[in-house]
């Protein structure tokens, strides 16, 4: 069996798919009577043209790194975790409870505790669907979708009936104490001088990068990672090799949910400084696009998260400066998922057979 070169599998085909997605997005922009070239210019200027833009781009990218890694880890165990949205919502609840529970003396201690809170709540929200999949065979995609909705209702209840400060009409928690506020890029040595005070990117970005390395190590350098990948490739072979399906599904999904929950240190603790309704803003779903584009590799996830951070910030600028609504980003996101995910075989099949035929011809010559 001839194999296609690796650069085609992880380089050429994803890039071509991405290109198609962007070309179609450009056509949509034309259809609504705007100029796509002008739109790209506004987006690049707004997202990458200034430290202010970068501050937002990296802030969004931080969210997407966490949710993208969450989808990727589950995917290696052949579980499609579509519940990142709900897990990140619950992670927000965990982070908020930690921040409000105790007068933290220093942000670093608060951050460590909040990370545990966010990860535990996120993992707990993934645990029930994981258990039902592993033990009772309930389809994890459906159960995680249901848990997204249940999570939204739960958060709504907690904010309206439990955590809302007395006298406040807002469905939101009280503000967190100043001692829990994380250092933003503005507060950091060396880079601080470039970034203004209002920039939301904060120390969570570096934790997200660290998470990429840790996930890489976990998947490719540990026994558990090996078991996860083996199970993901072939359940029957893994079972034969003595790998317990229940253990693997649970482990992969708990790590996945924990990563999604960790996102809250960025969007809740890092900038919001209180928990509001819908603070996740779809980042859990963008994680799906990010993981697909990044081919479930942490480095790929990192690059894809940067791209989506750019799209998100650029899309916001677009809505401000032109008549193109923000929802263009949702369309781009959909097309990226469609072409790099569902339509992957459209280009893959002909390109692979082309290279296989060429390799064969070379051998015979």
């Amino acid at each position, binding site marked *: 069996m001839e194999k296609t070169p690796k650069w085609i599998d992880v380089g050429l085909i994803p890039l071509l798919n991405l290109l198609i997605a962007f070309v179609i997005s450009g056509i*949509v922009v034309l259809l609504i009577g705007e100029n796509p070239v002008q739109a790209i210019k506004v987006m690049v200027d707004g997202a990458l043209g200034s430290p202010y833009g970068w501050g937002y781009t990296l802030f969004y990218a931080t969210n997407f790194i966490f949710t993208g890694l969450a989808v990727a880890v589950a995917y290696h165990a052949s579980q499609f975790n579509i519940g990142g949205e709900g897990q990140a919502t619950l992670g927000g609840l965990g982070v908020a409870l930690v921040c409000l529970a105790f007068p933290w003396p220093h942000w670093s201690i608060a951050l460590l505790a909040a990370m545990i809170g966010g990860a535990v709540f996120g993992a707990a929200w993934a645990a029930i669907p994981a258990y039902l999949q592993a033990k009772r065979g309930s389809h994890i995609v459906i*159960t995680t979708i*249901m*848990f997204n909705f249940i999570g939204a209702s739960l958060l709504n209840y907690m904010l309206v009936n439990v955590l809302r400060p007395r006298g406040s009409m807002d469905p939101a928690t009280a503000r967190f104490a100043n001692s829990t506020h994380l250092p933003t890029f503005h507060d950091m040595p060396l880079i601080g001088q470039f970034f203004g005070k209002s920039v939301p990117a904060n120390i969570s970005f570096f934790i997200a990068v660290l998470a990429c390395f840790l996930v890489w190590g976990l998947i490719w350098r540990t026994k558990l990672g090996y078991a996860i990948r083996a199970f993901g490739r072939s359940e029957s072979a893994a079972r034969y090799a003595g790998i317990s399906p229940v253990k693997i599904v649970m482990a992969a999904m708990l790590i996945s949910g924990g990563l999604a929950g960790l996102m809250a240190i960025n969007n809740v603790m890092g900038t919001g400084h209180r928990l509001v309704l819908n603070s996740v803003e779809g980042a859990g779903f963008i994680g799906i696009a990010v993981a697909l584009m990044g081919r479930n590799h942490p480095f790929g996830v990192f690059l894809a998260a940067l791209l989506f951070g750019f799209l998100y910030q650029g899309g916001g600028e677009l809505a401000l400066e032109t008549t193109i609504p923000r929802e263009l980003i949702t369309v781009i996101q959909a097309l990226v998922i469609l072409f790099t995910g569902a339509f992957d075989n459209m280009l893959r099949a002909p390109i692979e057979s082309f290279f296989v035929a060429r390799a064969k011809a070379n051998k015979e010559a």
Partner: protein
Amino acid sequence: MDFATIIELLDSAVRLGTPLLLACLAGLFSERAGIFDIGLEGKMLMAAFFSGAVAAMTGSAWLGLLAGIGGAMSLALIHGLASITFRGNQLISGVAVNFLASGFTVLIAQSWFQQGGRTPQLSGNARFEPITLPGADAVKDVPVIGQIYSNLLSGHTILVYVAFAMVPLTWWVLFRTRFGLRLRAVGENPESVDTAGVSVIRLRYTAVAITGVLSGLAGTYLATGLAAGFVKEMTAGRGFIALAALIFAKWRPVPALGATMLFGLLEAISNRYPNIDLGVVNLPIQFMQAVPYILTVVILAGFIGKAIPPRAGGQPYVKER
């Protein structure tokens, strides 16, 4: 609670349950043929927008209906291409379809109408008007039976009656026709259908197209029957509740009617009574809203009868070579 209130609640349950019923039957055809469809939400939303937009521009609800079906159909075709022709992941395709609809509808609505992602308010012939069944006014004052007839059964739009008629029709098609037998077979064991010389691809595309038509009806009802025009994200998770109902009904048409009407009733109750005080516990509105999802998880977990999906569901069919 008096009798009139109960009738009102049930009437509201029928209205709210109808889009769920249509979407649920839509999903039933697709999933029975082995194509998972988590993109019902997107198809409904697309149909809601195009029906609302065309009805607003032409003043005709019927033209709106055609446009709505066309909108849902285009997404069904994308889903079919991904899942049947390119043998891609059906779940990923469903996710893409939902986002495509969510973004595209607002983008086009803003470009066409400049009203912040909504269509103009529909009135007159641009909406499907309630139909008064014969004699409904005459028997209005007859206790019980008259009230049921004139307030519960009469006074819905044509799409509601179509939705209810679709239940026995779906049952008949699936379980009493050759097409239905083949459709179910292709969802359980496509090899056997292929061996019998019937095209798996054509059957599955037909099923996906029927899904497009029915989810088109569901979305059209939302924008031109239940509401008067399209607003951004107006499906509000109904496609997922329909999916939940489909599982709840174990992929069967008559239980689908029961499940969707139950979920419609839950919505009607929580609209009318935001907080329900049972004496011992106080059920908050958020709990009522989450009930359909919680019930589905319980059913999926197999604690109350097990829900087993069609066996070949989610797997692309590859012909033997």
